[in-house]
């Protein structure tokens, strides 16, 4: 859920573009981390571990822990917490180490 109004901060901008999560359109603000757009849309599971297929989501938010990696426009292992969203991006849940796909 987004926080457009805040007791201390200025009103926030509205989402201005669309990205696709596993094929489903979700609104995003250009330049915000992909992870922020996903959380705003209620998406919390970003990938599944290689061995036991356990779900993982955002943890550190600063690009260090790599728990939030996903397949972005066909490229696996993209850190969604530090990668800016752009109109039309295709974001997919990463299974294990992920696979390269045609962009």
């Amino acid at each position, binding site marked *: *859920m987004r*926080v457009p109004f805040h007791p*201390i901060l200025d009103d926030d901008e509205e989402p201005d573009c669309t990205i696709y999560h596993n094929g489903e359109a979700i609104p995003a603000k250009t330049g915000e981390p992909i992870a922020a757009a996903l*959380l705003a849309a209620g998406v919390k*599971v970003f990938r599944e571990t290689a061995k036991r297929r356990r*779900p993982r989501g955002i943890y550190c*938010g600063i690009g260090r822990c790599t728990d939030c990696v996903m397949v972005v426009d066909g490229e696996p292992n993209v850190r969604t917490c530090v990668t800016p969203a752009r109109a039309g991006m295709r974001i997919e849940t990463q299974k294990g180490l992920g696979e390269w796909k045609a962009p």
Partner: protein
Amino acid sequence: MEGSMKHAQIVIVGAGPAGLSAGIEAAKAGASCVILDENAKPGGQLFKQIHKFFGSWEHKAGVRGYTIGSRLLRETEELGVETLLDAPVYGLFPDEKGIIVSYMKNGREEAVLGKKLILATGSTENALAFPGGTLPGVMGAGCAQTMVNVHRVLPGKRAVMVGSGNVGLIVAYQLMQAGTDVAVIVEAAPLVGGYGVHASKIRRAGTPILVGHTITAVQGKTTVEAVSIAELDADFQPRAGTEKTFEADTVCVAVGLSPLTELAWMAGCDFTYIPSLGGHVPIHNENMETTVAGLYAAGDITGSEEASTAMEEGRLAGIAAAESLGLINKDEAKKMKVAVWASMNALRTGPFGQKRTEAKAQLLESARRPQ
């Protein structure tokens, strides 16, 4: 390589409060400076700090973190400090003319040769292991703070905060301000870790802070659904029969920070181990210079503290590095450094500063011992 390599008198790694402050002092002295940062935006963690800072007027008390961040950025710009973003540093190579700092930019390897190097790399949040601790919805408190205050997205509807230091207290309050309910704050120690003023605000808002308690498990199929806590005995073991379960979709972990010291290790700095500063920290003297000549460290890399002390340490390193290049004369530099030290010592007073004062004295002491 020499042909394409950038040159600067002072190279700074990290564009947070320490690195920016170092750049400002060095540039004021007339040094050419390059600041490198792996992030897309400068300011480090200042822009998520929407609370007012403590200290006195000189310490920017009463000013919110993001305002301080904007001021630092404006000053570096006005002084012509070059700041390279999206530029993670991956290698340091000693050279007869200084030190070559290698970094990535737009997927390419680049390098800058600096006569002096200041490491202001900051720190990272500690993790905590408990059953269910890998479920989506469990995250660092700093991560939740970034999402709420910078990106304006709630991490969830109802959270449990683990840890009652200033990070735990402030983030819990800021989650409530933005609309996430905080069910409870648990603290393993017998006392609240952070400032009383923050703890009181939280209690007034109706959220209990349970000291002598810890998180024992998180339940949920694919994301956090419920959180169990328990009282701890004198040996910090959960006491049987005291377990309570809260419905929650988010767990924020605020159990301290560890200095990001990789580059200092790589450069061959000598280290010392001081638990209250977050573990291994590079040894430095009163000039913030490490045991590697010409290499300075400032901010959380020398022990996790607060942005206010990080700025002072950055200023010290910037002044000392400029002095070593002959850009500030010795007497003038001494006056400036004495003033910064006085300001920094004032920040480290009181019951909360005492421990840090002692730890920092220990760190400086280790610089005096022969290695």
